Structures are given as structure tokens and as C-alpha cells.
């Protein structure tokens, strides 16, 4: 499917994503201007402050965006009763984007004003202008061009960085990029990347035009000041409005998911089942990377998501691995209730464990059946693992020790890229998920975990107890979802999305219809 075709077929969703993206950029740049320009002015009056403040802004720009998001999410900072920093969603994304855009704006305001011809400043002072009059009537108008150049740089940075904000459910064109990466779909990646680049170019041209106009002095005949003030006020009003809105989600059940295909499908299954059976309004907050879903559940930003028993035991509770599925489930159930007041409901019926995968040809050629078989020849192999697998307690370190694996090279990359890397002979062995639809698509072979290193990963909806109390009907819905999926079934659903490029929500709806779970009686 070509890019144009895709965008035409999905123009509604595409339009929404573009709007979300613009919203993030305008809001962030706007707030950054409201903070950065006064700070820049302050620096011209108190030059001693310029080192610490510019230094801070400088450091902020060097912090990788995902790290900054991760750092901001657990925070809980309130202004009056409104949360201004912390949690998933646009709010946190905007805070991070503001921190990124501050540097060019502060720096350009500072240099713009500092570079005003001293003779002109002397003339103004000699004519009896107060410091304020000098600033507003002389220095700021003359520095406006340079300040705008800073805003322009900040805006372009924001457009780019905002794509990453999709990782924390802030929306925007990054959704297509992440979705595309996950599904190995270049069209999807381009559908996010190309419009984002176009927005950046467009913003650059537009602000460049303003900059030129102002430098020509055309705007500054009294109108300029009014325009500046009114646009500042409008921005302020929008900012205030958004914070008020984002502060509450009111009377809805928020369903979350992690950031891979299976999770999005499961999220849709849970969400649609709740919608059909309880009639409650459901908000979807999908694609939360790493442990964000758990964080969001803790923060009350989502009410429910599907977790895997092994992940809960090892990654969240940080306990030792257990082999027996029942034992694992009991353990997480009682600990989650005690520590977090979360309830593990009925298991969905399948175990999505790590699948150690090799190319089917290799498996035949070397006669490989188990991981132990592969361990013997691992020293000539290159392995590719997702960041998650490399770092988690039950991941690479313990796994390689258990089997005595020594690879020629170990590559760490995005999970979704490992399949492609394996298929393209870039690596020879990867750790995927046993339910992954791409396994059959790429003709991969799953090696048996003959030493039973990986604990069971039964998929189970985890829900806040408070939500269950508020919506008692929810318990019935979740009970009905118990045992509806097998590994095989899940693999098919995943393939329908990853392989056949169908939408997760359609795949989920058809599945629920087949099972008669959408009957609105």
C-alpha cells in the first residue's frame, strides 16, 4: 500500500494525529516562550544569573527524550489542585518539550537584547526612558527578530521530539512511527515521519517569514505590540484551558496497554468487552512503553491493563523466578492486592513466554531443536535482543548463564527490529515472544526452553480494586474473558495485525463477535 493511499484511507485518524501533534508543538513552544523570554530578559538585567540558567537549559537539551519522559512520569507536582507534572499523556510530554525548547529561546532573547547598539540604548536612556520603557519600546522591538529565530529553532526541535511523545500516550504522529516499527511496516513509519518533517519545514518557513517581516520593521508600527500581547493572551488562555481539562478524565474506565501489537489487541478486546457489556465509557491509553503501564495504573491514569504473571513477579515485585504457573499466579495475586490494591482477574488462557528464535533454514541445517543444541554453536553466532530482554531480571544475563551461551556478538535493539534483523541475516538468534505473528510470517523456528529457564507468562487483566468497587459490573465482564485465548489463537490475531496489516480494533471486534462476547442483550 502506498503512502498516499494509506493516508487517504485513514484520513480521519491521520487528521487527528496531525492535530494532536500540532497541539503538542504549539502548546510547548508557547509555554517555552512565556517562560523563556522573561528569563532571557532577566539575564540581561542580572548577567550573573546567565551562567547557571543557560547552563541548566543546556543540560536539559542533552538529556535523551525518553529518559526525560521516564524521569517526569513518576513525579506528582500540583499547582493548586491541578497536576502540572507527572503521569502519562500530553501533560508530561509538554513539560518535557518545554524543557527542550527553553535553551534557544532564553539564549536568543539574551543575545538579542545584549546586541542592541549601545548608542541606541544610551540615546534612549539620555532621553529619559525608564528601564521598562527602554525594554518595551526599544530593546524588545529591536531584539524581536533574534528572539523569533530562537522560537523557530525551538519549534523545529519540538516537532521532532514530539514524535517520541507517543511512547507515553501523548498522541501525535509518533503513533504511526511506533506502530510502524512494531509491525515492520515502512508505510506506517513514513506516514508518521513524512508529515512530521513537513510540519517542521512548514513551521520553519512560516516563522522565518515573520522573522524577516519584523526585521524589515514593517510590523512594528504600534500594531506589532498589540499583536504580540493578544497572541500571548490567547496562548495563555489555551494553556490554562488544557491544564484544566487534562486534570480530570471523569466517570470513564481507562484501559491501558503496553507498546506491542499483542497488548494493543488485548487492550481492544478488554475495552470492547467492557463497552458492550457495561455500557460504560472507555478511554484507551495504549502503547505505553516499558513499565509505564504499571506506573499509570499506580497513578490512577488507567484502571486496567493486561499483565503477564512472570513479568509481575520478576520485573514489578522483583522476586525470584518460580516454575509453576499456578504458584506464580497465586504469588502475584496476593502481593499485588497487598502492595498496590490491584486485582489479578481471570487468566486469558495463553502463556506468552520468551521464544528463542532462529531462522528455519538454520534449524534444519544444524539440526537444532532446543536452546541447549544452539548453545553448542553459539560462539559463531550473533544475537539480537530487545532492550527489555537485555535489562530484565529474567532476561539475557540469567538466560545466557543458564545455558552457557557465548555469542560472537550481542546486539541490543528495538524488539520489533529484531525479527527483521534475523530475517535479513543481520543476526542469527533472537528472543521474541511465543505468540508473535511474525514467527510464522518470517518462517522462524522456536527453540525449546529445555531447561525451563523462563517462568510462565500467563496473560491476565490487572485492575484497580477501586475501579472494581466503582463499577461492580466489571467483574462479570472480566470473568467472561477468562480462558478465551490459546497461544495459537493469539498468534493468529497478532499475525492479522502484523502480517495482514489489519487494524487491531477490527481484529479484536471480529474475535469477540466469533466468541459471542459482544451480544448486547
Amino acid at each position, binding site marked *: 500500500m502506498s503512502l498516499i493511499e494509506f493516508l487517504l484511507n485513514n484520513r480521519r485518524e491521520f487528521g487527528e494525529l496531525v492535530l494532536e501533534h500540532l497541539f503538542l508543538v504549539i502548546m510547548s513552544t508557547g509555554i517555552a516562550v512565556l517562560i523563556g523570554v522573561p528569563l532571557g530578559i532577566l539575564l540581561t538585567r542580572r548577567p550573573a544569573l546567565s551562567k547557571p540558567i543557560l547552563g541548566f537549559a543546556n543540560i536539559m537539551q542533552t538529556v535523551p527524550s525518553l529518559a526525560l519522559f521516564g524521569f517526569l512520569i513518576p513525579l506528582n507536582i500540583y499547582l493548586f489542585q491541578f497536576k502540572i507534572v507527572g503521569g502519562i499523556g500530553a501533560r508530561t510530554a509538554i513539560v518535557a518539550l518545554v524543557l527542550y525548547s527553553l535553551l534557544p529561546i532564553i539564549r536568543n532573547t539574551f543575545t538579542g537584547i545584549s546586541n542592541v547598539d549601545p*548608542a541606541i540604548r544610551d*540615546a534612549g536612556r539620555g532621553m*529619559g526612558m525608564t528601564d521598562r520603557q527602554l525594554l518595551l519600546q526599544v530593546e524588545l522591538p529591536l531584539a524581536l527578530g533574534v528572539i523569533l529565530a530562537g522560537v523557530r529553532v525551538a519549534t523545529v526541535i519540538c516537532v521532532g521530539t514530539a514524535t517520541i511523545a507517543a511512547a507515553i500516550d501523548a498522541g501525535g504522529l509518533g503513533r504511526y512511527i511506533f506502530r510502524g516499527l512494531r509491525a515492520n511496516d515502512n508505510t506506517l513509519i513514513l506516514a508518521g515521519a513524512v508529515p512530521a518533517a513537513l510540519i517542521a519545514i512548514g513551521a520553519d518557513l512560516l516563522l522565518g517569514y515573520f522573522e524577516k517581516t519584523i526585521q524589515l520593521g514593517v510590523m512594528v508600527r504600534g500594531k506589532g505590540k498589540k499583536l504580540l500581547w493578544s497572541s500571548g493572551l490567547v496562548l495563555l488562555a489555551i494553556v490554562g484551558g488544557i491544564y484544566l481539562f487534562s486534570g480530570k478524565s471523569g466517570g470513564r474506565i481507562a484501559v491501558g496497554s503496553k507498546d506491542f501489537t499483542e497488548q494493543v489487541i488485548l487492550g481492544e478486546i478488554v475495552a470492547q468487552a467492557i463497552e458492550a457489556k457495561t455500557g460504560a465509557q472507555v478511554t484507551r491509553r495504549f502503547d505505553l512503553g516499558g513499565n509505564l503501564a504499571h506506573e499509570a495504573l499506580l497513578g490512577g491514569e488507567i484502571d486496567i491493563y493486561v499483565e503477564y504473571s512472570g513479568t509481575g513477579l520478576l520485573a514489578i515485585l522483583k522476586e525470584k523466578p518460580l516454575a509453576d504457573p499456578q504458584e506464580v499466579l497465586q504469588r502475584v495475586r496476593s502481593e499485588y492486592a497487598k502492595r498496590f490494591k490491584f486485582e489479578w482477574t481471570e487468566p486469558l488462557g495463553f502463556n506468552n513466554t520468551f521464544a528463542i528464535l532462529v531462522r528455519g533454514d538454520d534449524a534444519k541445517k544444524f539440526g537444532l531443536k532446543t536452546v541447549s543444541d544452539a548453545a553448542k554453536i553459539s560462539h559463531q553466532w550473533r544475537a539480537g535482543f530487545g532492550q527489555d530482554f537485555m535489562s530484565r531480571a529474567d532476561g539475557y544475563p540469567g538466560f545466557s548463564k543458564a545455558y552457557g551461551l557465548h555469542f560472537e556478538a550481542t546486539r541490543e535493539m528495538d524488539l520489533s527490529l529484531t525479527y527483521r534483523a534475523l530475517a535479513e541475516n543481520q543476526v542469527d538468534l533472537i528472543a521474541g515472544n511465543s505468540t508473535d505473528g511474525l514467527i510464522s510470517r518470517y518462517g522462524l523456528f522456536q527453540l525449546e526452553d529445555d531447561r525451563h529457564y523462563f517462568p510462565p507468562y500467563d496473560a491476565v487483566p490487572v485492575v484497580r480494586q477501586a475501579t472494581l468497587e466503582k463499577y461492580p459490573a466489571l467483574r462479570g465482564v472480566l470473568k467472561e474473558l477468562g480462558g478465551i485465548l490459546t497461544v495459537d489463537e493469539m498468534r493468529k490475531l497478532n499475525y492479522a495485525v502484523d502480517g495482514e496489516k489489519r487494524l487491531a480494533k477490527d481484529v479484536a471486534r471480529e474475535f469477540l463477535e466469533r466468541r459471542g462476547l459482544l451480544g448486547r442483550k
Partner: protein
Amino acid sequence: MNPRFFESINSLETAIEFRDVSFVLPSGKTLLAHLNLQVGRGETLVLLGRSGSGKTTTMKLINRLIDPSAGQVIVDGKPTVEWDAIQLRRRIGYVIQEIGLFPHLTIEQNIGVVPRLEGWEPDRVAARARQLLNLVGLDADRFADRFPRELSGGQRQRVGVARALAADPPVILLDEPFGALDPITRRDIQQEFKSLQQELGKTMVFVTHDIAEAFVLGSRIGLLKDGEMVLLGVPAELLESSHPEARAFAACFHDGQAIGRPA
């Protein structure tokens, strides 16, 4: 005979007075030492001297862009340190060598800056600007809406003078206002300025390093060297003085006349 000549000698009223004024930089460098000086109302005092002799420092002490390290500068009977700096500056027109026209404002807006700061009605500001443009020899209809960069150096200088006159201040400070002009324009503008001066009767302090200009415009000349006033008197006194700095400037004046004289 210039009527102001007599006025300057028996000036009835003192507009500006320096009483043993010194100005020392934080680094310890003395820019001005023990300056004593009186400028009568309606008089034009020219401060003459080489670069770095303390002329501009003297000017900045009058409109309180700087405060004296020792001594007192008295404007209208009150030491400058007791004046509100803003109030003081609004009573004193200021023209600097670089002119300092605001590049983002039109000529009319530039001239109207101080009246606007003083809260004049827009119509009155505009009318005043046009009146002054005509006074300094610029056609208001042609120039009012232009920007400074669209004017020649001489035209900008005239605008600078008009701007200093805008709110009709009793005192005007001019710091080498014609320094950057070509000799012909400069000569023209000096002549015009002289008649303007007689017409307006303002108290003026005029800084220059050009002795010919000092002779054309000054009722009295103060000669500064290394921050000290070495001579204060009418032009004739400068030519007759035996002080080496006075003789150096006098020599320049005679050279200039010799070159200018037809062969």
C-alpha cells in the same frame, strides 16, 4: 557683535554649574578632575578637546547618566543626585555622535519619543514632529514616514537635533553631533544650527574636537585635557593663550584657514 557674547559674560542666571567635580572609574582611572564651570541660561558652551579628554564624561554628568565621584553638578539650582534621573533627562535634550535614532521607528515616531513619554496626545505629537522637521530643514511630507536607514547621514543628524528639541527642553546637550559628516554637509549644517540656536535661545553644551566648529558655535569655549579644564573663555582668549594645548588647537585653526585661503 553677537548679543549672546555679553550675556555669557554677565550671565544673570546659571543653568548648569560644576563645583569641583571629579569622576573616577571603579578601576581607579580618573576621567575628570576638579572641574569648575558655569553655564549661563541661553549660553552655548563648547567643550573642546582631544579624544579621551573627558568631554563626553562631562556631558553624561549633566543628564545623570553617571553620578560624580566627588563634587556637585547643579542643574537648575539642584544637585543632579537630588534630581529624579528620569525627570532630569526629560528636561534635557540629548544628541549623540552616533545619533542613536531608533531604527524600528519612523522619523516622525523618533522625533515624538519624548513627547509620547510625557503623555502628549498623538495628534499633538505628530504636529510637533512635523513642525520640527520643517525647522531643521527637512520636508515633513517627504520624511515623516521614512525609517532612519532611508536617510543620508546629514538628514539623520538633523532628525537627531529635531528629536532633542521635541519636548522643548530648556537645556540641550550635543555630543559631537556633526562628527561623522563630510566637510561640506558639516559646514552647511553648522550654519543652519547657528541660526537655529539664535532663534531658540536654549542653553546648550556642545562637545567637539574641531576648533573651527567651536569658533562658529560657541559663545564660550572650555578646553579640556586629560580630564582637566585648562582654559575657559571666549574664542579670542583661546587664540591668545600660551597654554601648550590651546596653542596646539590654535595652530590647527590657523592651518585650516591657511589651506582655505585662496592662493
